[in-house]
C-alpha cells in the first residue's frame, strides 16, 4: 500500500476502561504484523495528527461512553465522512479524536484510509482494571484490525 499502515491505541492508562485502545495496541505488539506501526497515545488532537504523517492507512481505537452495554464494539469509517457527533472521543479535553481527524481532513493530511473502532467502557475510575467485557472486546478488535490490515494489503497495489 502507499504509505505505511498505522494502528493507534488511544486512552489514559490510569483510568480503567479508558485504556481499552491502548490494550489493543499492546496486544498487536505481541506479534506485530510486518510493516505496521503501532502507537499508544493519550488522544490530544494536535499530537495525534502529527502521528498521521506519512501513513497510508490508520486504524484508531478508543474507548467510548454512551448508553451501549459495556464491551460493545462499534466501527466507523472516517475516510470520507466525519464521525457521528458525540459517538467517539470521550476525551475530557477540548480537542479529541474527532477533531484530530477533521483537522487533518481540513489540512489535507488525513491518511487515504481512516477507520475508528470504539469500545464501550464500563468504568473510568482512576486505577481500576479493565472490566471483563472490555477485555473480551479488546481481543475482538485486535483480531478485526489485523484482518482489515491484511485485507488492505491485498487490495491495494504494493508501494513504499
Amino acid at each position, binding site marked *: 500500500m502507499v504509505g505505511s499502515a498505522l494502528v493507534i491505541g488511544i486512552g489514559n492508562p490510569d483510568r480503567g476502561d479508558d485504556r481499552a485502545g491502548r490494550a489493543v495496541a499492546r496486544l498487536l505488539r505481541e506479534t506485530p504484523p510486518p510493516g505496521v506501526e503501532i502507537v499508544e497515545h493519550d488522544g*490530544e488532537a*494536535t499530537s495525534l495528527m502529527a502521528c498521521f504523517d506519512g501513513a497510508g492507512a490508520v486504524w484508531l481505537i478508543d474507548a467510548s461512553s454512551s448508553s451501549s452495554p459495556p464491551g460493545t464494539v462499534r466501527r466507523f469509517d472516517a475516510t470520507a465522512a466525519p464521525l457521528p457527533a458525540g459517538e467517539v472521543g470521550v476525551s475530557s479535553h477540548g*480537542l479529541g479524536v474527532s477533531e484530530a481527524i477533521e483537522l487533518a481532513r481540513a489540512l489535507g493530511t488525513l491518511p487515504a484510509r481512516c477507520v475508528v473502532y470504539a469500545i464501550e467502557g464500563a468504568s473510568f475510575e482512576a486505577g481500576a482494571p479493565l472490566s471483563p467485557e472490555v477485555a473480551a472486546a479488546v481481543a475482538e478488535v485486535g483480531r478485526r484490525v489485523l484482518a482489515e490490515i491484511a485485507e488492505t494489503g491485498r487490495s491495494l497495489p504494493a508501494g513504499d
Partner: protein
Amino acid sequence: MQVKTIKVDYLARVEGEGALKVVIRDGEVRSAVFSIFEPPRFFEAFLRGRGYEEAPDITARICGICPVAYQMSAVHAMEDAFGVTVDGPLRALRRLLYCGEWIESHTLHAYMLHAPDFLGYDGVVDMARDHGDAVRLGLELKKAGNDIVNQIGGREIHPINVRVGGFYKVPRKRDLAPLAEKLKRTREQALDTVRWVAGFEFPDRERDYTFVSVSNPDEYPFNEGRIVSNRGLDIPVAEYDEHFEEMHVAHSTALQSRMKADGGAYLVGPLARYSLNFERLSPDVQQAAKEAGLGPVCRNPYRSIVVRAVEVLHACEEALRIIDDYQEPDSPFVPVEPRAGIGFGATEAPRGMLYHRYRLEEDGKIAEARIVPPTSQNQPSIEADLANFVGTFLDMPDEALQYRCEQTVRNYDPCISCATHFLKLEIDRG
C-alpha cells in the same frame, strides 16, 4: 420584565467539565456563576503515605496539558522541606523544560481554542479550512514545545525524567545543538504569532484586577521567587496560606480561592505574570509586545491571547539562551536526605501560579498534601468578568451573546480537566 432564556448544554474548547450560568433581569446581570464539579481531592488523598520521591510522577498525572508545572511545584516543595538547593545547570534545565510546556500549552490554546473566537468560527476545524497556513504554523510551533519536553522531560505527556534534587538523566551539550537550530526557526514563528494575534479585534473592556504571580528579581518567573501582587503583597511562598484561603461555595463542589485580607478575588496567569514582570522580559520581547499594542500592564482579559503569544516568544528566547549557556553538570541530581518537615512550592504553570504544600514524615513519607491549581484561584475572577462585562453586551443577539460569554471564559484557558469534564452554559434572561 423582559422574558428570555438561553440555554446551552455544552461549551466547547475548554479543558474539562464545569457549568456557567448567567442570570439577566431587566437589562442587568443579576448573577454570573461559574461552577466546577470537582470530585473529592483524589490526588491529595492518593499522595498520603507515598514516598516523597513519588510526588513528581504522581502529580504529573493530574493534568495532561501541564504535567511539568505539577512536577516542578512538587520537587520545589520537597526540596524546601529537606533544605536542598538546586542551582546551576540543573536549575537551568528545569527552566528549559518549563519553556517547552509554556510553548506547547499557550500555542494549543491560542491557535486551536481561542483564535476561532476572534475570527468568528465555531472551532479550529472550521477555521483551518480558511486559515490553513496559520493552523499549520501553530501546529509546528506547538511541536517545538513538545520536542523540548521530550528531550529534557523524557516523554512528551507526563514527563518521567524529573526527580527531587534534579533529573534522572541530563542531556549532553552536543545533544541540544539540533534543538537549538530548530528553535531559531521557532522563535521566528513565535514572533509571527504575536503579530498575527495582535491583528485581531478585541472588546474594549478592562478590570482593575489584583494580579498575583511568582516574581524573581533576575528573571521572568517560572520556578522560583516570592509571591507578589500589584497591591503591595510580597511574601515568601511559605506564607501563602496566611494570605490566601480556599472556600467552599454553594454552587460548586470545587474550592474557590480568595485573598484572606478582604475576601477579594485575585488573578493569576499570563495577564498577572506579564503585568508584574514586564521589566524582566528581554528588550526584544518588550518591543514585540509594544508593537502588538500592549503596554507594560494589561488589564483587558480579551488581550490575554496576545500576552500568551508574547510569553511563547519569551519562552523561545529563554530556551535558546539556556541551551547556549548550558554546561553539563557533574551529576544529574543533588543528593537528597529526607527529614520530617513541611515544604512549600509555587511555580508558574501556563495558566498561573500552582501551589503545593507537603507535610513529610522523618523517612520522607507524605503525611499530608495540598495542591491549589490556578483555575480554582481564577474562578472568582472569571465570575467577576462575566458579571461586569456581560451587562455591556446585552444588545447583542442571543447567539452572539452566548458566544461572547464563552469567549470570556476561554480568556482564562481554564484547565478544569485537572479535576473535571464538560462545561454547561446557561443564560437566563428572566
